[in-house]
């Protein structure tokens, strides 16, 4: 027997420390007498354990990067003490290179930056399974996207959207349009996604900034990247890096 929606809500509220005294009593009784409910709770504990494990590992990797930076600084200081002359010579060479770089026209164009940073978003919404029959237009659309048949994907995604607006379809259509070089359509897709749905604002903003870049609208690209750079999401560092280059 599968757990009910009510069971899942009760369990979620327990782990989020939201249960009242009465609800807690119900929860404890269910835990004691209901095997299915107990398994559900045990499974959730393991899932939360895995999330915490990931958090600890992420922070461990972060501390290792801090350690590397400290070691880099130490190495730099000790070298500086021994080889001052070489240091100044190297600094002069670097300064010269920077001067050449600044004086000569070598700054990447918007198009080059777009090419460097744009990769189509992976279809994580409905990955197509090998050996599964293509039965619906939806499956076919996602599969066309995955196999990089973007013209077909655009056609099918548009047909799907005509029936029902869904955030993941809009999002992948935006990516598809970018792949096809249809920047204004892509921009429209991402703007609609941001304005009409809550689900994927940050991802949509990243791709919207790339749309601006592709059409050489650096001012709007900057605005969008600045906004993303101030968040704590995975796009933040990439956004900051690109913003520096756009500036």
């Amino acid at each position: 027997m599968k757990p009910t929606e009510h069971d899942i809500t009760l369990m979620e509220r327990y782990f989020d420390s939201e249960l009242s005294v009465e609800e807690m009593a119900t929860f404890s009784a269910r835990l004691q007498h209901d095997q299915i409910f107990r398994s559900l709770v045990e499974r959730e504990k393991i899932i939360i354990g895995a999330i915490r494990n990931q958090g600890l590992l992420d922070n461990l990797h972060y501390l290792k990067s801090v350690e590397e930076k400290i070691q880099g600084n130490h190495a730099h200081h000790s070298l500086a003490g021994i080889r001052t002359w070489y240091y100044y010579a190297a600094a002069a060479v670097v300064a010269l290179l920077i001067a050449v770089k600044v004086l000569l026209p070598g700054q990447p164009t918007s198009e080059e930056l777009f090419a460097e940073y744009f990769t189509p978003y992976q279809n994580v919404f409905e990955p197509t399974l090998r050996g599964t029959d293509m039965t619906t237009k939806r499956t076919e659309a996602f599969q066309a996207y995955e196999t990089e048949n973007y013209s077909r994907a655009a056609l099918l995604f548009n047909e799907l959207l005509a029936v029902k607006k869904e955030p993941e379809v809009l999002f992948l259509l935006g990516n598809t349009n970018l792949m096809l070089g249809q920047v204004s359509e892509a921009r429209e897709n991402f703007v609609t996604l941001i304005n009409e749905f809550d689900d994927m604002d940050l991802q949509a903003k990243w791709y919207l900034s790339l749309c601006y870049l592709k059409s050489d609208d650096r001012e709007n690209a900057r605005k969008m990247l600045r906004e993303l750079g101030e968040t704590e999401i995975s796009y933040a560092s990439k956004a900051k890096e690109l913003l520096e280059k756009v500036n």
Partner: protein
Amino acid sequence: MISGEALPSEIIQKIRSGGQTELGMIYEEYRSEFLQWITKEYDCSLDDGKDMYQLTILIFYDNIKRGKLEHLVSSIKTYLFGIGKNLAKDNMRKEKKFIPINQEKWIKEYLIDEPQQNLDESIFSLAKKALEKLGQPCQRLIELFYYENKNMQEITDAMQYKNPETAKNQKCKCMARLRKLVDEEIQLNSTIAKNETY
């Protein structure tokens, strides 16, 4: 610097409401003293000492985030050295001498040893695989909630959701998706196991 003239309770509060920046600052603050002490006390290499220090800082951070450490009578330094001492002793218990610590294995055991946790190790590994498949922004969102212990308002600010209700709704959706992925991993694993028996 995070401490300077700050009281331990102020530092704890800063870490409680902060993130990786504060974690990095506290790491730098006590690093030299800790490494000097642990390498001398336990006759271990500098690299082994660094591994111990990184775990020490992670425990300190985790204790604050989970509300297990709210006030300190002693100094932060004494508290950190205390964690380091327990870690080193625990590490030496089996071998009777200092051996290099496997950090990832240690983290897993740390989670399994948590009170009221009877983690089934095989399902734990499958849950980790499912988590990798979950992708962003779900991964980040549930990590902020279950590891960083951020509330919905803090998550809304960090991830730019429209309001805490949207964040909460999104968190429930992400967890539902993760549960489904875990089920799929378990099914896949049992199919492979069955095929191997034949």
